[in-house]
């Protein structure tokens, strides 16, 4: 009996000494605790030179894990970058910024307002920063078709319906100073107009890889989101056609080569970057008019045609374009 009692107390002593320090479930402090700023919000790398691949980041730490959002707004361009996360700290790993935009146009060399806010707390912290040189999106992993800064290349042929407009415009561009306006009303045909961007005349030669999953087509489109009175959907329809020259004869032959298409509604106002993975483009035209090898091969792209379409019964359509560029490895705004 005595031995049993000793054994019991020894066992209890071991049990009580094995206390766990962990907690069960999500941290209550993160859900209901007050938000205290332990380290104030700071910008590291002000006057950043994005053109030379410099980066900028922010630091702060909080008393709880919280949903935070940093909003950077260019005072000249109006461009916006949003960096967000859920953590009790902000540092290089979760807030680095290489100069890209979340909302177009692109940032330029300019002053920016910076604002840190939280999802369920009213606290807001503000600061300013300066961009000494803007990010250059055209680099070794991109192929620029055109940015219209040197004007509209007349070798990019096309067709616009009578009364519809295609014009190079300065000011209010998505990138740089110039962009191409496209708009009009056509009550007898779906086509407002199209432009062929032949690869021989791209600003960079076609050095795209053949793996379609690695290649993205990017285009800035400025929409006006006019809603069709006929079918209630946005009136402007945008279509992209990619023509492959599979036999490298400098010509697309519909009877023996592939064409891939991609179309979407322009249902927004202002500039937006559309990025399409070349794997997602579709072979819409049935043989014998589209009888190539059936393999998407970006390195063989001979022509990119952009088409602005609209229901002829529904009126005005508009989709300005700027900065047509291929990127390899991911969308241009990753």
């Amino acid at each position, binding site marked *: *009996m005595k031995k*049993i009692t000793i054994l019991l107390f020894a066992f209890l002593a071991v049990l009580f000494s094995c206390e766990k320090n962990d907690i*069960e479930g999500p941290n*209550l402090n993160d859900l209901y*605790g007050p938000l205290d700023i332990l380290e104030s919000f700071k910008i590291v790398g002000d006057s950043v030179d994005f053109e030379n691949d410099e980066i900028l980041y922010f630091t702060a730490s909080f008393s709880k894990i919280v949903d935070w959002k940093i909003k950077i707004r260019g005072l000249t361009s109006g461009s916006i970058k949003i960096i967000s996360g859920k953590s009790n700290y902000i540092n290089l790993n979760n807030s680095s910024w290489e100069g890209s935009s979340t909302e177009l146009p692109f940032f330029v060399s300019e002053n920016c307002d910076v604002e840190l806010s939280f999802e369920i707390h009213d606290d807001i912290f503000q600061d300013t920063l300066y961009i000494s040189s803007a990010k250059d999106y055209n680099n070794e992993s991109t192929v620029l078709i055109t940015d219209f800064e040197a004007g509209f290349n007349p070798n990019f042929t096309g067709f616009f319906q009578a009364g519809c407009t295609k014009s190079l415009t300065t000011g209010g561009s998505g990138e740089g100073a110039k962009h191409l306006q496209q708009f009009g009303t056509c009550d007898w045909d779906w086509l407002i107009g199209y432009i062929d961007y032949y690869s021989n005349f791209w600003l960079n030669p076609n050095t795209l890889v053949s793996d379609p999953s690695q290649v993205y087509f990017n285009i800035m489109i400025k929409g006006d989101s006019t809603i069709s009175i006929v079918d209630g959907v946005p009136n402007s329809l945008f279509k992209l056609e990619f023509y492959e020259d599979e036999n490298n004869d400098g010509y697309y032959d519909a009877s023996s080569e592939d064409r891939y298409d991609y179309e979407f509604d322009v249902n927004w106002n202002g500039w937006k970057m559309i990025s399409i993975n070349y794997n997602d483009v579709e072979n819409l035209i049935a043989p014998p008019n589209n009888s190539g090898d059936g393999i998407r091969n970006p390195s063989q792209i001979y022509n990119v045609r952009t088409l602005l379409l609209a229901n002829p019964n529904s009126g005005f359509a508009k989709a300005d374009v700027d900065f047509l560029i291929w990127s390899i490895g991911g969308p241009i705004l990753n």
Partner: protein
Amino acid sequence: MKNILLNILIIFLISYALSTQAQIKSKVWYDGNARVMYDRDILTGDNLDQKDTVSTRSNGTGFSKIDLGLHFTPINEIEISSSIRLQNDFGGMWGNRNSVTLRSLSASGVINNKIRFGIGDLFLKQSKYTLYNYSQDLSHFEPDVFSFYREYVNYENYYKENYWRLQGIQTNFSYNMYNIIEQIDIDAFTSRIRGAQWLGDPELLMFGGTLFIRLNEKIKIGSHYINTFEIKSTSNTDIAYFNPVFTAKFMYSDKFLDMYPLDILFEGGVSKRGWEGDGFAPETQGMFFNSTFQSKINNSNLRLNFKLVDTDFRSIGAQTRRLNYSLVPSSYAYYGNSYTQRKIGLLDIISDPDIYNQRLSTSLMDYNPIYSATLPYGDATPNRIGTEVSIEEIKITGFLKLNIDAKYFTELIGQGTTQKRNFLNGAISSKLHINKIFDISVPIIIDASAFAENIKRSGSEFERINLKTNLISSGILVGLTDNLSLVCGSKLFSAVGNEYLIERNTYDQIIDYNTANFDISEMILVGGIQYYFEKDTYITMQYNHFNMLDNNILEDEFSMGRLVFMFNMNL
């Protein structure tokens, strides 16, 4: 078609039983239960004309049921038992509310006079940590005046003591060895917890065993094993649940100070629970330890218990709750102009059999901390460490007896914080036989109990918890004759304070907390008469008044009266 076949089978069984009885009288016998119940619920309260213009002012339901238990012994070693329910709900016409159902069917017997077995409906129980059907919330020390409700609820849900009613096969046998080991007792069973569901979860099976070895008259060691698992091949799924639990026991019986009997029990065990094939499911392993010292001093039973249950200890057979808070109460489930769903309250807990659960649950069922917080899953409640002291049958005088129970537990690890909840829970009950004081021939008994529970957690403002609940119950029985009595009783419940209600995902992991502030009071008053023909055969007619008020939502106050008549007879 199924019903027709069932009816034919039942008629055949009854005919067979009667004819067999005529031929071999000793081989067939009956038992069962007959119950007639009628209750009329009456919506009461102030300003009903404005507050509730949609609910009916009263609802009546009633039924008569006979559960006819038939037992056959076709041969001496075999007994076949069935229970057939004949039910007639009041208010039906041309038999449209009559039903005949098979309530239970089983066979049992002995092989070679050594090995007992049972097949069919089985009542199974093991350790409190492997397979145990814990009593419902707030049922401890309940005055006798409420016992007819409790018996009704338990009977309807097949709650026999702390056994779970399962379907399967069971066997047990024992060997006397008369050497180092005196006796070995072995019990094993397998059961089908859940059948296959079309496009649903796979079949859930359980098997378990118990081994007890008596080394001498003082020392006994034993072990329980139980495993609950899904059979993947019975469904179009790649995921299968499993939950094995193993426990080991050491029992020692002796005399303390050479006078008082002393029983010591140590039990420890481990569990594993997971979902094979589910990459998102955690595989958890948990343990528990329990020690109990029990003695009898001056006719009072003294029990001291210490237990620790790990946060990840999971045991489907011991952690399934009787009360299912996801169900809605039978009486006035919705009320008020806003058609508010009524929360399960104290009256429903004591009287509504339809809010109870008869199936083992693979995940922890929800509980309401105002009714049960210290040990909502019984002794197997995970994340608890603490002690319990109880003294029963304290004889103060010849006419007054007391029972005392106290518990103090804390969490092993905090929920959402390093601060841990502390649970203090105490209950006392007494039975005063007035007739013995004044030497009156008819019984006059006052039954009273008090229960209090306090959950506390300190820390920052958002971590702090302080919830106090109290239940004071009383019952008075005044015998008018030897068999006829006036009865009245009350239950006054209050819950004041704050708590965090826990939200768990399908894997029992806590995913969120909802703040809850309680300021609730409930009152049940009962009064009526009861007549006992003999033990378990009685008629009672009572009026109940029930009020539930949440002081945080005054407009949702609910009041109800109930006139209830019950005839009960155990055949």
